[in-house]
Structure formats: structure tokens, C-alpha cells
């Protein structure tokens, strides 16, 4: 039961992961700063998932990256590309629509129970 629940939870969260990451990349971020941003917002993400995800997004041309070697430690910064912003806006709209739909479904369910 609990392992089944866990796997469904993971699946739900996985669907929102790309949206969460894209939302924070309007300004350039490096791996660890992004982790901190997400954590502050309460979004828990496995670091072993996040770093590979960033590279995948770069390969799909949703984000661009460049190495900053001016500081003491070299850091790879990621930022949304034009194409990435476009995709992000559309995903955001889709997310809003979905949450509305789902909320109305879940609300109906709660009303049934209280009747």
C-alpha cells in the first residue's frame, strides 16, 4: 500500500518537475543555487535528478548554459532560452487549466461526501 502510494506520489511530482525548474530560470542559476531556490519554495527535489535534468533541458534547447570562471570556483550557469520561455509559458497555462479542472473534480467529490 505505502510503496504503491509512494510510486504514485513520485509520478505526480515528476510531471511538475520541469515546470518548477523552468520557472526559476528567468535569471541565470547554477546547480546548487537552483536547489536552494526550490527548497526555499518547499519543492523537494533529488539532487541526483536535478543536475542531469538541467543537462537534458540544455540538449533540448530550452535553456542555455555558460561557465563563469571569474569567481574562486567555476560555476555553470543555466538560463531560459527564447524557445524555453515560450515552452514555459505554455506549460504554465496548461498547469493552470489542469489544476482548475482537477480542483473542480475534487471539490465535487468533497461535496458528495458532506451530503
Amino acid at each position, binding site marked *: 500500500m505505502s510503496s504503491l502510494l509512494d510510486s504514485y506520489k513520485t509520478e505526480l511530482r515528476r510531471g511538475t518537475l520541469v515546470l518548477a525548474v523552468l520557472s526559476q530560470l528567468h535569471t541565470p542559476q547554477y*546547480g546548487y543555487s537552483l536547489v536552494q531556490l526550490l527548497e526555499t519554495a518547499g519543492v523537494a527535489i533529488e539532487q*541526483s535528478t536535478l543536475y542531469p535534468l538541467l543537462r537534458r533541458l540544455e540538449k533540448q534547447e530550452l535553456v542555455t548554459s555558460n561557465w563563469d570562471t571569474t569567481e574562486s570556483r567555476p560555476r555553470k550557469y543555466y538560463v531560459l532560452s527564447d524557445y524555453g520561455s515560450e515552452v514555459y509559458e505554455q506549460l504554465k497555462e496548461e498547469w493552470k487549466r489542469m489544476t482548475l479542472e482537477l480542483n473542480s473534480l475534487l471539490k465535487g467529490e468533497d461535496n458528495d461526501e458532506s451530503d
Partner: protein
Amino acid sequence: MNLIDIYIQEVTRRLPEKSRDDIAMELRSTIEDMLPDDYSEEDVKKTLSELGDPALLANEYRDRPAYLIGPLFYDLYISVIKMVMPIAIGISLAIYYMVSLSEWNREGGIGKLMAILFGESIWTAMTIFIHAIFWITLVFFVLERSGVSPTSLRKTGEKWNPEDLKAIPFIPKKKAIPKAEAIASIIWTLIWVFFYFNADHFIGVYEKNRVNDLELILPAFNQEVLLSYWPVILLFIITEITLAIFKWINRQWTYKLAIFNGVYNLFSIVLTIVIITNADFISASFIDYMLNLFNGTQAAADEMTNWIIGVTIAIFIITAAYNVFDGFRRAGIKKF
């Protein structure tokens, strides 16, 4: 040795050469970001365990699939195996029997023959099975990784369409003829033909020889009589194999097939009756042997021979009649 270095090495060695350096550099900078300024080995261990198993992390970085045949191709893959396997095994067994039985020079006696028919043929079938699986898997492996879309392999086009159903014959279960039936029929043909033309070497009275091996001391049938029917036998073999091929292609019982099956069974009965009622069918030496064995009279022996022939013919007629009836019955079935 630095744990961080080893960790990064453990991740990057699993990755393609060209992306290694960049990932190593990024990983190192990230790990250092995660660590406090003045860190101890304990801090390093804590940080690395947050990143988790290097093999799993490498797996996340890799964008090629971590499976042999993916879900998109799996169904097609299985159905190709199911389609190819009986054909591959059937044909190779048929060739194997033909070659090994024609090359077989009667050395090694009945034991060697049984080894060819059962033991070695199972080995042959297994070898073919493994080969077929390997090559089909390899083809699908390449197909999937070369980016071919599974729907493009469909005969009718990109998307499934209800019109596609018209090209598929409707086969109710009770009418269906399994492919194994056709294959078994061809293998049976090869076996009986072999024994028919070599009856004088196999069928008869066996006794143990000096080396404790079974040896045929006298054949039961008169090989000359058997051989004299060769043109009819040849015609019968052709009929039998044609029927098997017909079954294979048709995949279900139809009236046409049922009629063909009827003709074949009639042919088989007539042929059997003609051959076994031939006065010289059973060899004289075998009859003498039997007379000695049972210490009987000529009349008693004749009576027994006639009785055996009668029963054999009756069994043949009953099975043939049932076979023919069953064919027509199945041909008449309309629904599942």
C-alpha cells in the same frame, strides 16, 4: 585518496567520453557548493550520500535507453518471434531429418537412429531457437535505436484505421489450425517414409548380440513388396505434404480443405489395404519364426495374421472417418 575524486570518477567512467570532462567539472563545483567552508571527511560523506549511488546518477545523465526492447516495440517484437519461430524450427528440423537420414549409413544401429530422431533433433531445435531469438532481438535493437517509428512498420500506413481490419481473416477458435499441426504432419511424413523404405533394417525381431546390443535378426515385412509400390507411395507423400502446406497457409478449416482432407484419408485407407493384404507383405521367415514361437499350426498362424490385418484396417478406417468428419464439422462452424 580524495573521496570526491573517486566519486566523480565513478560517475563519469559510465558516461560517453565527450561529456565526461564537463560533467566532472560541474559535479565538482556542485559538491564544493554543498560543502561547508572548512569541511571534514564526515561532511564529504554526508554530501556524497545526498547525491546517492554514482551508478544511478550516471544513469540519470545518460540519455540513451537502459533497455533492450522498449515498450513501443515490445508487442511487435513478441509477435515477430511467435511468427518466425515455428517456421524457423519447422524448416530446420525438416532439413536436418532429410540430411541426417539420407547420410545415415546404418552404422550404430537403432540406438544411433533414435539419437538422430529425438536427442539430436531437440538440440538442433534449441540451437535454431537461440539463433532466431538473437537475430530478431538484434534487428529490433537496431531498429529502435535508429529512431524508426513502430507505426511506420504497419503495412497500411502511419495510423491505425478500422479499414485495416478488412485485410485480416476472421478465424474462430474452433476452426483454427495451429501451425504446429502442419509442422508435425511434415515431420511425421519424413519419419514414416524413412521407416517404410528401410523397414527391412528396423521392423522385425530383435535379439541381443554378443556386445549386448539389439540387433535385427529377421525383418517382419518383405522389403521388395514395399518397394514395388514406390510410384503410389510417392504420389501419397506429395498429397500428404500438399495437405500440410494447405493447412499452414489456410490457417482454418474450410470446405475446400475438408474435401482435400477427405480425398487424402480415402487415399491413405486404400493404399494401406492394398499393401497389407498383399499375400507377400509379411516375410516368410517372420511367419516361420512366429510359428516356432507359438508352436502353432499353419492354419492357426493364418487365422492370427488375418485377424491382425482385419483389426489394423478397422482402426485405420475409424480414425480416417473421424478425421474426415471432424474436418467437415469444423469447416461448418460459423462463430467462436
